[in-house]
């Protein structure tokens, strides 16, 4: 982590040229909306990470850092958009300067350019969540559990876990499916083999007995055992075959293949009988369920798109090499495109679950069609061998079955196939045509009419066919065993990963939830002292349930107010950061967070940050002057800037850095009294607010919060005078005569300075108001300016430049002092003896 000393911004976002000295301490930036505060946050994030979440994160649409990061006047010249941070790396004890331009936003200039410094900055850029807006902070609270899991895991840098889990699960599912199909093929091959030898079962003993019975018939020795590579006809010599081809005599395999084209009557009859008896492997209910699921998918085009895009996106990621889209060549930053595609894949997670469910319903039907196609093929093979000719009614059936199978296979990748599948499932399309049954009967009848071969020839032919089918069965067996083994391994790997990640994550979530609860209780001391929150992982979801005043545990958005939810968001963020970074959590930018938290809780927020994260540099922006004052008085921030306005030409107007008096003088020199008067008025409004708020002056309440200069500056001056008088009395009570005299002089001087401003004249005459200043001559108005400058500089601390604020002990005013404490007046009188 880093602590920022100085920030320099040039032609970046809405800022033309700005320097802020943070001084490596917590810092507040206040200004009305639209004055450039978030531009500062963007600049810090950009300089440290090369990215601007606002331009590249969720919902940023067509925005991009390259195109929209520069100031609007230099969008075509992004090298002019530069941010420089001078900071300190506490872990290395080294100062560092980072300069990054939009033109080379992936290649910052780092001084010193040392490996350990670069590594520390790389680690920092891996934690872009150090910069957080209110929108982002509440997302941990008000969000769906699945999204929360992703967001929290992202913040914990654990999003990789979800991606790996998803990949391992998909791999396991695919392996299991391969194994299932291999098992189906194996079963088919086993059945085919049994039919070749007319076996009732396929036990090893039965198989061996059936083979040896036939070998005995043809007069060769029995096999002792049946192995994977057994050759049923291996020792049947060539002379025992009726094939004259010398090449086939030397190769029993060729002989077997040649013989298998012949009709082996018993085997053929067994095959045909099996086909006749075959029943559909899927039920009507299964098909109806599939139809219903496909219709639902058809009604949700977005879901279907997500399913279809998955493959494309995965391919895109594989092909991603250069800074352009591999499909359309559109220029992209490679990292940004990869991030974009990854988010697409994450979006597809729910689609993946649906896809897996649908695939599970589709595959049995696809298998069934494959079986029917094999049966048809066998019947037609026999019909051809029997000389039955072709059946016109069945000529198109093989192609028809192939089409049906293709439709089902492509149902989830092709919208047209989805529609066809739906239409087809409404028809009795899995039923084979009547002509097929007639064809089977014709083949069966013809087979039975074939003359019986000799016992020896029959035995030899049956062994030949059996050998072919046995070899196929062995092959399928090996395939199936491999697939089964791989599926078991893939599932074990997935389970091991889930167990490892769950064990670690449960521990993390419990620790984070405890910390979160403790922080929240401190924020709401006296109100929710028994508050507890729980983070519970449930598969890929992360539920957050919080106690609601002892009435039960509910999601945060159920009963808690928006202000409480803001507080929870901050507490969860802090707990997560503390857990993720521990002592390395040294820097955070909180952009306008906690806007709906009430004043009492804001003080607690300040105290929590100060006490729990004393080594962390917080940079907080707010449009609320009171909130900034709380940060100061509670000692959270040690420095601040006030953004008073913004123009596209000049960027933010920063009061402290912006020398208001020099600016006014310049306008006076130009005889631009109107603008000089407007600037003075805005600045005095700012001073009036800070002074009245800090000293807790008696101000006429306005329900609309629309306080004018009249409402704030005179009460502020008046309260300052009262407090100084009280300080003089206190000094007198303690017998500090020198101090008493010093304060007395100050009271007198202050009174004269206030008098010189004629503030009451300007302020009591509402009809004249300050617009009257614009009608003065430059010399006359210059006197007004000087008067206000004198009184304000009198009140300001010479060191920290802060105006005084009151410190209370309960309801008693104890002290007035500046931020750094150098200028302070004690107000507590000595108690009478």
């Amino acid at each position, binding site marked *: 982590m880093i602590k920022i000393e100085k920030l320099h911004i040039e032609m970046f976002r809405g800022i033309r040229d700005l320097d802020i000295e943070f001084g490596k301490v917590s810092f507040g930036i206040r200004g009305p909306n639209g004055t450039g505060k978030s531009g500062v946050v963007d600049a810090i994030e950009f300089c440290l990470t090369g990215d601007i979440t606002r331009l590249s994160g969720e919902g940023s649409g067509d925005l991009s850092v390259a195109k929209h990061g520069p100031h609007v006047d230099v969008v075509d010249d992004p090298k002019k958009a530069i941010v420089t941070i001078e900071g300190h790396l506490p872990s290395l004890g080294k100062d560092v300067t980072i300069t990054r331009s939009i033109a080379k936003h992936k290649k910052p200039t780092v001084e010193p350019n040392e490996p350990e410094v670069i590594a520390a900055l790389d680690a920092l850029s891996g934690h872009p969540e150090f910069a957080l807006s209110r929108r982002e902070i509440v997302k941990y609270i008000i969000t769906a559990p699945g999204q929360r899991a992703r967001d929290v895991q992202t913040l914990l840098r654990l999003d990789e876990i979800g991606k790996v889990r998803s990949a391992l699960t998909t791999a396991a599912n695919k392996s299991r499916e391969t194994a299932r199909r291999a098992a189906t093929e194996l079963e088919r091959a086993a059945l085919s083999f049994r039919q070749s030898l007319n076996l009732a079962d396929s036990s090893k003993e039965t198989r061996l007995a059936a083979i040896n019975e036939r070998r005995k018939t043809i007069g060769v020795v029995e096999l002792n055992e049946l192995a994977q590579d057994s050759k049923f006809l291996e020792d049947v010599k060539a002379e025992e075959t009726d094939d004259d081809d010398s090449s086939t005599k030397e190769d029993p395999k060729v002989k077997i293949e040649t013989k298998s084209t012949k009709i082996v009557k018993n085997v053929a009859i067994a095959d045909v009988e099996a086909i006749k008896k075959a029943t559909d492997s899927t039920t009507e209910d299964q098909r109806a369920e599939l139809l219903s699921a496909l219709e639902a998918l058809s009604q949700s085009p977005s879901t279907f798109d997500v399913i279809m895009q998955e493959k494309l996106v995965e391919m895109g990621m594989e092909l991603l090499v250069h800074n352009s889209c591999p499909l359309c060549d559109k220029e992209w930053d490679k990292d940004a495109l990869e991030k974009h595609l990854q988010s697409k894949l994450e979006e597809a997670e729910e689609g993946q679950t649906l896809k897996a469910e649908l695939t599970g319903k589709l595959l049995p039907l696809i298998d069934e069609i494959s079986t029917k196609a094999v049966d048809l093929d066998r019947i037609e093979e026999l019909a051809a061998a029997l000389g039955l000719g072709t059946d016109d009614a069945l000529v198109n059936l093989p192609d028809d079955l192939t089409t049906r199978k293709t439709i089902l296979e492509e149902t989830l990748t092709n919208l047209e196939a989805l529609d066809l599948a739906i239409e087809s499932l409404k028809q009795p399309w899995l039923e084979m045509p009547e002509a097929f049954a007639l064809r089977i009967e014709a083949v069966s009848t013809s087979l039975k009419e074939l003359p019986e071969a000799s016992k020896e020839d029959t035995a030899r032919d049956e062994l030949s066919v059996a050998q072919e089918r046995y070899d196929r069965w062995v092959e399928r067996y090996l395939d199936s065993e491999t697939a089964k*083994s791989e599926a078991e*391994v893939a599932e074990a790997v997935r389970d*091991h990963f889930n167990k490892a*990640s769950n064990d670690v994550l449960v521990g993390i979530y419990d620790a984070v939830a405890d910390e979160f609860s403790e922080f929240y209780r401190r924020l709401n001391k006296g109100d929710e002292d028994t508050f507890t929150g729980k983070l519970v992982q449930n598969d890929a979801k992360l539920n957050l349930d919080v106690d609601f005043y002892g009435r039960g545990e509910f999601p945060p958005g159920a009963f808690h107010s928006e202000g409480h939810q803001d507080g929870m968001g901050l507490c969860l963020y802090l707990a997560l950061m503390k857990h993720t970074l521990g002592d390395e959590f040294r820097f955070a930018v909180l952009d306008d967070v906690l806007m709906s938290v009430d004043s009492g809780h804001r003080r607690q927020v300040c105290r929590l940050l100060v006490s729990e994260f004393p080594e962390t540099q917080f940079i907080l922006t707010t449009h609320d002057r009171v909130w900034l004052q709380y940060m100061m008085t509670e000692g959270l921030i040690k420095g601040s800037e006030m953004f008073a306005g913004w123009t596209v030409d000049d960027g933010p107007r920063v009061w402290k850095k912006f020398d208001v008096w020099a600016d006014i003088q310049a306008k006076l020199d130009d005889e631009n009294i109107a603008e000089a008067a407007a600037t003075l008025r805005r600045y005095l409004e700012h001073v009036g607010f800070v002074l009245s708020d800090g000293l807790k002056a008696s101000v006429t309440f306005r329900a609309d919060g629309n306080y004018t200069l009249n409402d704030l500056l005179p009460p502020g001056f008046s309260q300052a005078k009262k407090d100084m008088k009280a300080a003089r009395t206190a000094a007198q009570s303690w017998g500090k005569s020198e101090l008493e005299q010093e304060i007395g002089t100050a009271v007198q001087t202050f009174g004269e300075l206030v008098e010189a401003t004629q503030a009451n004249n300007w302020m009591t005459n509402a009809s004249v108001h300050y617009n009257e200043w614009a009608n003065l001559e430059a010399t006359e108005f210059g006197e007004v300016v000087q008067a206000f400058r004198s009184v304000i500089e009198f009140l300001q601390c010479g060191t920290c430049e802060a105006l005084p604020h009151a410190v209370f002990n309960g309801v008693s005013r104890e002290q007035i002092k500046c931020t750094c404490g150098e200028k302070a007046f004690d107000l507590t009188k000595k108690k009478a003896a």
Partner: protein
Amino acid sequence: MSTPKSPTIKKIYDDFEVKLKADEEIDGDAAARLMALLNGDQIVTAQKVNEALFPPSCKSGVGE
């Protein structure tokens, strides 16, 4: 430059690797290839997982 893994990720991967190595059914080389994939900079996909666990050269018959 390889993106550094967070301590939590490292802890999960270490635990995962121990579990893989303790499982006699999982080939040691396959486990090593998978861990290399996880610890690398490539995006982990189901296809890459399968390639790591079951490379084509290792596809041989399993005896009866």
